[in-house]
Each structure stands twice: as C-alpha cells, then as structure tokens.
C-alpha cells in the first residue's frame, strides 16, 4: 500500500510536469540554445571560426581518415581526446576560445561567444 506521503510526492511531481509543459508551450521566447556543427575534413575545422551564443552546443564530427582532437589552446581547459574517423564530440560553450588539434598542431579553430 502506498503511504500518503508518497502519493503527495507523486502529485507534486505531476503538477511540476504540467507546469513545465505549460511553460514550454506558452513561452517559446525563453532561452533557445542552438546546436552548431563543425566538420573536421581535409585536415581543417569547417567553419574555422564560429560565432555562437553562450550555452550553445557545438558538435565536432571527424570525416577524415585519421584521428583528430579538439583542444582548447591557451590553457588546455578542455579537450575531446582522440576522435577516430567517424566519431563526434560535443561541448556546451560558455566563453570564447581558440582551439586546435593537438595531434596536428597546424589545425586551428575559433569559437566566438557573443
């Protein structure tokens, strides 16, 4: 038998869910985080420079025949680790960054957060 407390909890959850639904449908003007792709092909990040909003997600996809990585350049604050051919990696961007491939150091890219 369910105790009254857990019934209360279930009700609260449902209520929250309903409010969430209403929230989603009635106010689409809220924050819209977008997803942008960066293709890694022919030893280049394409586009090499990308302007995004804070909170956007960037997805890097490796189309090349060798492994690459995506590494923040100034302080190695983040890195994808090696991405085998066909693999992808995503990051939620919070601030502008120069990045590069630490395997092929001549490959460079830039994220500009507006």
């Amino acid at each position, binding site marked *: 038998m369910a105790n009254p407390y857990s019934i209360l909890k279930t009700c609260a959850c449902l209520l929250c869910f309903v409010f969430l639904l209403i929230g989603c449908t009635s106010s689409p003007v809220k924050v819209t985080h977008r997803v942008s792709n960066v293709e890694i092909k*022919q030893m*280049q990040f394409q586009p090499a420079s990308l302007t995004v909003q804070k909170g956007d997600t960037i997805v890097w996809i490796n189309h*090349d*025949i*060798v*492994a690459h990585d995506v590494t923040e350049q100034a302080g190695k604050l983040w890195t994808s680790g090696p991405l085998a051919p066909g693999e992808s990696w995503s990051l939620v961007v919070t601030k502008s960054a120069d990045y590069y491939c*630490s*395997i092929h*150091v*001549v490959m460079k890219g830039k994220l500009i957060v507006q």
Partner: protein
Amino acid sequence: MKIIKSVKVFASVAIASAIISVPVFGQENTRLSDAEIASVAVTANQIDIEYAQIAQKKSKNADVLRFAETMAKDHQSVIDQAVALATKLGVTPKDNATTKSFLEGAAKTKAMLNSTNGNAFNKAYIDNEVAYHKAAINEVENVLIPDATNSELKSLLQSALPLFKAHLAHAEMVQKEFNK
C-alpha cells in the same frame, strides 16, 4: 652541412624518381597499375613510420617526439586503409621500380639518422621529414592519383593528400626551432 646536402640529394632523387621512375627503369608501360600503386603507398607510409620510430628512440625534444608520434599513427592509419581496400578489391600489392627507389632512399636516410645524435639528430630528422613529405606529396599528386584506375583507390589517395600537406606544414613548423 653534409647532412643537409644528403637530405637535399635524397629529396631531389626521390622527386626525380617520382616523376621519371618508370621510364628510367626501362619498363614498357609508363603507367603504374593499381597493385603497384598499393605497393608504393604502403611502402612510402611504412618508411615514414620507421623514421618516426628512430626519432622516438633518439630524440628528447618534445616537439619532435609529438611530431613523430603523429607520423607513426597517421601513416599506420593510411596503411591500414590501403591494405583493407586492396583486400576488398582482391588486389595484391606489387613491387615495382618506384617502391624500390623509395626503399633505397630510405636505407641511406636511416643510416644517416642512426649516425647522428642530440640536436644534430633532431635537425636531420625534421629536415628529412620536410623533404620526404614534399617528395611524397609530389608522388601522390602527380603519379599515383593520375595513374589510379579504381575510384576507391583514387579517393583514398585524394584523402591522403591534405593529410601529407598538413604533415609538411607541421614539420616546417618544428623545423623553425632548429634553424634559429
């Protein structure tokens, strides 16, 4: 000075052999078959892996070691894909004059690399990588791609081209460290 000279000689021999390899050896057919192209591709990539292994043994320079690691990995990837494709197509890589001239050049270069040490080694290795990638790019661009008949083989070679060009740019970047 002698090292630089021998690297230069090797590079020009490699470039020359890439351009005129087949006629020099007096074969009737001037065009490489897909089986011969597969052999050249595997051999040329294998040679650069062997140079990288020498560097991994002898160098203590972080940039040289990182470059060598990339060479070993990337050229192995190309070999793996060339072998997989040859297997799929039922093609057995076939030795030829170009393969032979690559191997002869490599034997001399490896002997030269093995006889140098310290910073002289770093410089000799990276100078050779610059020359070798220039020769390889020339070979792929002007001989292997035009000669390839199978479209998948041609496409693999076309994918290797920007890779080798990036390797060349990377090698030239490291080279600056030793030309100060």
